[in-house]
């Protein structure tokens, strides 16, 4: 069994890296009590809270945090008709936070994620590790068997080509979870008691051409490098599917990162995931996705973006056209999703106009 860390008595980080360049995006429908435990590591940073569900409910933010909060009324007011691309009654709404942020980096975390302990019993500053991951190059073109070669105490192994040792820019840092693992509903139903107690002390780059299931519970990314591709899709209320928001974004960002020569890392940091959602509820949300992903995966594996697509937005629009063309026959949902992908880019560009020279 694992326990979360006890962070009482840990002083607030006196030297928070990238304090003015990073926003923390948190979707919530309940409360933000979990932020009490995160104080030492997160208090210096600005929060963007995206309140899902009933907009009349008052969400209490623990004292001392600097934040902006958006509920559904705000989203509708700010985006007008384009608000249709932002999910309702699903944590996918968090991507609205990515869009309104003005910072270079985003860290997003779920409200049931606490601070984890490393094997030595020390509280893990997840944000600090994410920042290290993002600021350090990735190595997608050749796998290093000692994992992150830039880490203290590690390096490239014998045989690793020298021309590839500079690496590429890191766009995404995907963290993991101790305690309740991120399993799908069928696995949860079969193994309700399984807990992740294995602390794997490594960060690694996911090779070019390889897809992975990206979980949005503990995730950080460079908004300038990949932000527009971090759309979490149409989920929740009025949609035939849920719990595939982060998966969808993960497949999109990976093909775009591969195309643009950017890196995606996975591994450390761990957070402590405290709440297991109801597997029966999850099954209802996921079950279409379980069938659809059998077609979606080959689709993404075969995506070839054009040479002319050199910006994230261009790549994403191209991708949306392919989705419409190739996946609409799977279900009309994908037709709607393709349109929403375009709406998302239009809204992104509106809220994030290029700086005039």
């Amino acid at each position, binding site marked *: 069994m694992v326990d979360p860390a006890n962070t009482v008595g840990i002083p607030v980080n006196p030297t928070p890296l990238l304090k003015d360049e990073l926003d923390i995006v948190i979707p919530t429908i309940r409360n933000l009590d979990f932020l009490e435990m995160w104080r030492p590591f997160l208090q210096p940073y600005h929060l963007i809270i995206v309140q899902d569900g009933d907009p009349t409910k008052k969400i209490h933010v623990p004292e001392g945090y600097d934040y902006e909060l958006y509920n559904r009324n705000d989203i509708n007011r700010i985006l007008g008709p384009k608000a249709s691309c932002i999910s309702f009654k699903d944590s996918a709404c968090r991507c609205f936070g990515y869009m309104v942020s003005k910072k270079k980096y985003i860290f997003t975390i779920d409200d049931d994620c606490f601070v984890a302990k490393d*094997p030595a019993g020390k509280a893990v500053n997840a944000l600090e590790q994410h920042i290290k991951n993002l600021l350090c190059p990735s190595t997608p*073109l*050749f*796998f*290093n*068997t*000692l*994992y992150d070669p830039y880490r203290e*105490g*590690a*390096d*490239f*192994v*014998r*045989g*690793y*080509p*020298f*021309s*590839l040792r500079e690496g590429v820019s890191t766009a995404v840092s*995907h963290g*993991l979870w101790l305690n309740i*693992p*991120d*399993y*799908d509903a069928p*696995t949860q139903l079969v*193994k309700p008691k*399984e*807990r*992740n*107690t*294995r*602390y*794997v*002390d*490594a960060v690694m780059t*996911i*090779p*070019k*051409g*390889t*897809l*992975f*299931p*990206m*979980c949005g519970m503990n995730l950080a990314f460079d908004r300038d490098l990949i932000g527009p591709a971090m759309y979490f899709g149409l989920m929740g209320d009025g949609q035939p599917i849920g*719990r*595939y928001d*982060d*998966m969808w974004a*993960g497949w999109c960002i990976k093909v775009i990162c591969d195309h643009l020569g950017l890196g995606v890392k*996975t591994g450390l940091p761990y957070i402590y995931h405290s709440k297991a959602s109801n597997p029966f509820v999850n099954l209802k949300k*996921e079950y279409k996705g*379980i069938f659809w*992903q*059998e077609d979606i*995966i080959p689709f993404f594996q075969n995506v070839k973006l054009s040479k002319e697509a050199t910006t994230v937005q261009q790549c994403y629009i191209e991708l949306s056209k392919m989705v419409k063309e190739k996946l609409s026959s799977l279900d009309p949902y994908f037709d709607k999703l393709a349109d929403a992908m375009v709406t998302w880019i239009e809204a992104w560009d509106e809220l994030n106009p290029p700086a005039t020279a």
Partner: protein
Amino acid sequence: MFSGYSCRYFGYLVSKKKYIVSIDDDCVPAKDPKGVLVDAVSQHVTNLENPATPLFFNTLYDPYCEGADFVRGYPFSLRSGVPCAASCGLWLNLADLDAPTQALKTEQRNTSYVDAVMTVPLKAMLPISGINIAFNRELVGPALVPALRIAGEGKVRWETLEDVWCGMCLKHISDHLGYGVKTGLPYVWRNERGDAVESLRKKWEGMKLMEKSVPFFEALKLPESAVSVEDCVVELAKAVKEQLGSDDPAFTQAADAMVKWVQLWNSVNSSG
């Protein structure tokens, strides 16, 4: 063909068993973080006996081990995995770094015990080290080729590349035939041998050869008709000779050695 570190390939050739485990003679059992001695052979066998998952990355690493599974979003049709062809282990204390790196960081020791086994994804290239390796001889035996010898190859690992070349061939052939290659546990404890700075004095041919090898393997497509491991090795040798032969005589020699190796393998391992 069988001199220096490559003498072990003779052992692979004449063995009659299904699995091979090969460990350098300067390695001893490591201890895990709990202080328990690591049975590297047992871990290698477990790796080889369980499926590999090269077609989609599992973020919780080995889904078949105790306490882990496939994560949300992992396609169900890919959850049975593919046969595992090779298990590449790691090293505590003296990691398998090249001479320039070790010479620069003379005091560096690998103390990081990463508790995971994972499959190296399809098409991803990696430097496979011969220091601590195991493979399914029945599945891919002939693909471990004792082929690339660099000029002035010495008696320490820093002066060889035979295993790295062998590994590039093995990975490519495994990818082509639908097998998997795992990396991670088990660790062995590797000791001091040789002098990295001394090795630097020799002109380091390996660097140049690796630089040429990478684009070659990246672009290489073995023909559909190559369905056996032997066919794959022969086709690979042909491509090496055609595309890399003019770059360096070491490649031509490697291609010839690969063909000879397959002939030898077939004659030694034919029934009757």
